[in-house]
């Protein structure tokens, strides 16, 4: 019940903020803050919970929803989803805080959309019913589209439409795959059901499995993004408002990775093995290509966007490397990338607020005016390049280490990405904070609110870098289950006795 409350709180908060915003903008901000804060406290209280022996889920709830299809409101929380839930709520708070001054038009509607996106993301991380999963998956797109299209920058409409078309089209393929899976399951003697745990035991021919997996992959690869399908990302990230970029990079991309971990691998273990070489290649290409393009950017947000492509390549490699260590790395990378990139986008937003530009050419020499901003940015950039002691290092190390055993060539080439990351990250800091001062008047340093936001993210990265073990321990049972899926329940013979 608490899990449903987690999501419902955001929906209610969103509606309340939307209504209150018409009356007084500040109220919308405080309501959003309160809803997210309460949710965070609630979610943090789950940290103490541990699964009982033999129980896969820390918390689980199931209600009937559409009995005709065998779909239910089935939510579950385990070591894999808990960190992502926490990340969602932290970045949600960050998004509200960075928009405090930036968003001035239609404030209520903005927070309505923001909270609905976050509710959708939470729903994706918690759903154990495939129809519900798809429902939330699609649900987060419309408000995200509106966030970009209404509050974005100059090229926002084009970027928003592109984002929406890419994700919707691939989502539809996933829907077909979901229904195909359900139908195959029903033909195998079962009944119509969308329940994740029941469908885990579905057996099908390799060809069918491959086609079904491809449908899922289409959706996840667009979100992740994997390289040939990444073209929507730089536009969407660059044109979105700061909060939108943070949510996009920090959370929406993670839903793709989460989908691979939760659905892609466990549902289709055999087919996943078949596509692994291709996926790994795409991952490595993404790492290098993203880094390469990051160099070429003159727009701060576009540059950070391309580094996301590069970092998410590590996630793809981690997922398909075939070892539990690499899976751990992939999860870790998702969390750390969420924090570090979220932070960098927040910095970009702060700079844009002050300088009214995202052009790197027109920045420079800001350190003397804003040393605290510079310092915090430096830490975030160092995290992004994978400095030991910060979370991203642990993540990338685990991915490479895990991949090296089975795929030494892949790991070796991917490691080059680390070198590239070092170069572009330092270059970023150098161009913005050092060098000759731009023509702009003195720039204000961070306000306490802004400093708090960035410091929180930095603290999170530090903590993950120094004490990664609790997160890894928590996620281990779930991740081990990914590779050794529970023995398939025997397909039940047609029920003879009526219910």
């Amino acid at each position: 019940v608490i899990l449903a409350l987690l999501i419902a709180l955001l929906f209610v908060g969103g509606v309340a903020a939307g209504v209150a915003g018409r009356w007084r903008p500040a109220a919308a901000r405080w309501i959003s803050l309160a809803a997210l804060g309460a949710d965070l406290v609630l979610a943090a209280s789950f940290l103490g919970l541990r699964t009982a022996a033999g129980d896969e889920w820390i918390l689980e709830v199931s209600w009937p929803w559409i009995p005709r299809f065998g779909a239910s409101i089935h939510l579950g929380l385990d070591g894999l989803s808990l960190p992502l839930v926490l990340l969602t709520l932290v970045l949600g708070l960050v998004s509200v805080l960075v928009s405090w001054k930036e968003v001035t038009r239609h404030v209520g509607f903005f927070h309505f959309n923001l909270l609905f996106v976050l509710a959708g993301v939470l729903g994706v991380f918690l759903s154990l019913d495939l129809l519900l999963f798809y429902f939330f998956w699609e649900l987060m797109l419309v408000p995200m589209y509106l966030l970009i299209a209404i509050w974005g920058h100059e090229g926002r409409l084009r970027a928003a439409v592109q984002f929406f078309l890419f994700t919707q089209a691939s989502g539809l393929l996933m829907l077909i795959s979901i229904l195909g899976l359900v139908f195959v399951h029903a033909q195998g003697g079962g009944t119509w059901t969308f329940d994740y745990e029941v469908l885990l035991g579905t057996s099908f021919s390799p060809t069918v499995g491959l086609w079904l997996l491809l449908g899922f992959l289409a959706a996840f690869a667009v979100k992740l993004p994997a390289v040939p399908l990444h073209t929507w990302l730089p536009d969407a990230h660059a044109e979105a408002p700061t909060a939108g970029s943070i949510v996009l990079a920090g959370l929406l991309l993670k839903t793709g990775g989460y989908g691979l971990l939760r659905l892609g691998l466990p549902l289709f273990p055999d087919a996943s093995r078949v596509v692994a070489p291709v996926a790994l290649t795409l991952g490595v290409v993404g790492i290098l290509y993203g880094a390469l393009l990051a160099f070429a950017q003159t727009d701060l947000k576009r540059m950070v966007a391309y580094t996301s492509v590069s970092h998410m390549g590590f996630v793809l490699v981690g997922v398909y490397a075939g070892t539990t260590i690499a899976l751990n790395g992939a999860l870790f990378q998702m969390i750390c990338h969420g924090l570090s990139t979220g932070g960098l986008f927040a910095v970009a937003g702060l700079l844009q607020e002050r300088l009214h530009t995202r052009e790197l050419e027109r920045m420079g020499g800001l350190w003397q005016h804003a040393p605290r901003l510079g310092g915090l940015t430096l830490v975030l950039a160092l995290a992004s390049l994978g400095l030991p002691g910060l979370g991203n290092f642990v993540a990338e190390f685990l991915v490479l280490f895990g991949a090296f055993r089975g795929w030494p060539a892949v790991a070796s080439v991917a490691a080059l990405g680390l070198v590239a990351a070092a170069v572009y990250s330092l270059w970023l800091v150098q161009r913005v904070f050092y060098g000759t001062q731009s023509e702009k008047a003195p720039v204000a340093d961070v306000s306490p609110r802004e400093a708090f936001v960035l410091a929180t993210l930095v603290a999170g990265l530090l903590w993950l870098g120094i004490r990664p073990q609790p997160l890894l321990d928590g996620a281990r049972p779930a991740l081990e289950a990914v590779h050794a899926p529970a023995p398939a329940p025997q397909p039940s013979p047609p029920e003879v006795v009526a219910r």
Partner: protein
Amino acid sequence: MTGADLVALLPLLVLVAGTLATLVVVSVGSGHGRAAMATGATLVLALASLPLAAWDTPRSVTPLLVVDGLSLLFLGLVLGASLAVVLLAGRYLEGRDERPEEFDVLLLLATVGGGVLACSRHAATLFLGIETLSVGLYGLIAYPRRRRRPLEAGLKYLLLGGASSAFLLLGVALAYAATGRLDFAGWGTPLPSTAEALPLVTGGLALVVAGLAFKLALVPFHMWTGDVYAGAPAPASAFVASVSKAAVAAVLLRLSLAIDAPARLASALILLAVASILGGNLLALRQQDLKRLLAYSSVAHLGYLLVALDVPGPLAAEAVTFYVAAYVPTILVAFGVVSVLSSPPEDAQDLETYRGLLWRRPWLGGSLVVSLLSLAGIPLTAGFIGKLYVVAAGISGSRWVLLTALVVGSVLGLYYYLRVIVVLLGTAEARALPRASLAASVALVVLVGLLVGLGAVPAPLQGAIHAALQARAEPGPRGRGDHVRDGHEPQARPVRSDHDETAQPVLPHAASRLLHVRVGLHGDRGASHHLAHAAVAPIPSPGHEAHDDVAVGDDPHRPVGGLPLDHGQGGGVVGHHQLGHVPNARIRCAADGELGHDVTDLHASSSRTLAAP
């Protein structure tokens, strides 16, 4: 005709009486307000009589009409949609210089036609219903007779409507020539001289479907749709898009179930569906006229509907019904907003009129956005569940071509729905817009609530549809005829229903044939502990050896498809069985089960299709 028959026909009778009463009110000349009131009251009364009519159903009232769950459901849809149009049209009509009372009479007349179609099971009522509907529509569309565009639209609809009626009549004639029957069920069972009659029947049915496709504006019969939607007054467009589509879809569904269209007209249906999905979406892609855009989008949506119609099995009928039930409120909201914002003589149809609507009129703009999202099939709207049904039906029938078209079409559709939403989000220039009347606001709020409600909790409507399909008077193409309630309580006893037929010779290159086995179980809801298995066993006919890959033998209990039937509300199960190269094998379908307290009928039937290569 008995008293019970009259009760079952009550909604239609109320409707006809109300039409006449409204005619009297109008001829007395007491102004539009009263006429609208009479119209609304008629529709409300007819709606209120639906539960009464459902009291003793299913029943056939004369061979012409049938009142069962399905017809009551569609009747409710038609009446509700008409009522919504009346409510939404109020202020639009009052703004006219001409006498608006006629609009109400014509609307009721067209609704009568729609109601008849919803109950039709016979060629006569099919034709009468279509013509009554169309005659009403000609008037509705061309009714502002001093304006050029509505007149043009009305004339186009009249000419093409006439052509479609000709198609329909010719088709009916051919089917009659071949089968000697005029009821839909009769067309489903060819006469013994199958070989000669079959092409005639198929041709006739194809023509009938073509006639209906005109009304549904399926490509290539869609030519009128853009001009008519754009030219007609906005409330009339709303009526064409909702009531007329729902009524024709109802009769098409019933026809398709009776004649087993997926088996007999598969390629034609696939062609129509793919052409409509792609054609409609492509035509809508660059439209700058909102009414025209909605017109072409409706072409595409009817194409999606055909995807479900082309699949055999119980899921298809359910999918079609739900899709229509979701589509009607959706399109009503869209045209409702157009009606509210239109002030004669010019309708608000240029997209630019809507720039920034979301900020200028948050509720109206929001309604339009919800409607567009529902058209695009985004979750939390009824359109999503509708699309889910269609995709599920397509997958269950392995219609990959159609599914591909559906995906491509959906992405195209998304693009132009987004274009409209982008315009709604634009920066507004202050310009006076008409206000919505109270009635229109109420109607819009209810409809939008319906869209979101159905999207979040579809189970009640699904339950209603499921029950309605169970309570159908004609179970299947080769069922045991009409199921009529016979009053006595059957004891729990095992029954066996066999159905034999001789398979057609195999085509030389057909690798396999699919045999669809239907089992129907009829009874009251809540009946418990019943079970039926469908089984099929090819029996080698004398002089022919059955070949390898079919398990031939005397094991009729081998379950097919493994779909058990439980509960009295079950029924219509389809199993598939692959037939190999068995020349002239006799097929026997058997259904085993137990008849209990409330279950009245158990039957098995089969139909053949050639499996897709």
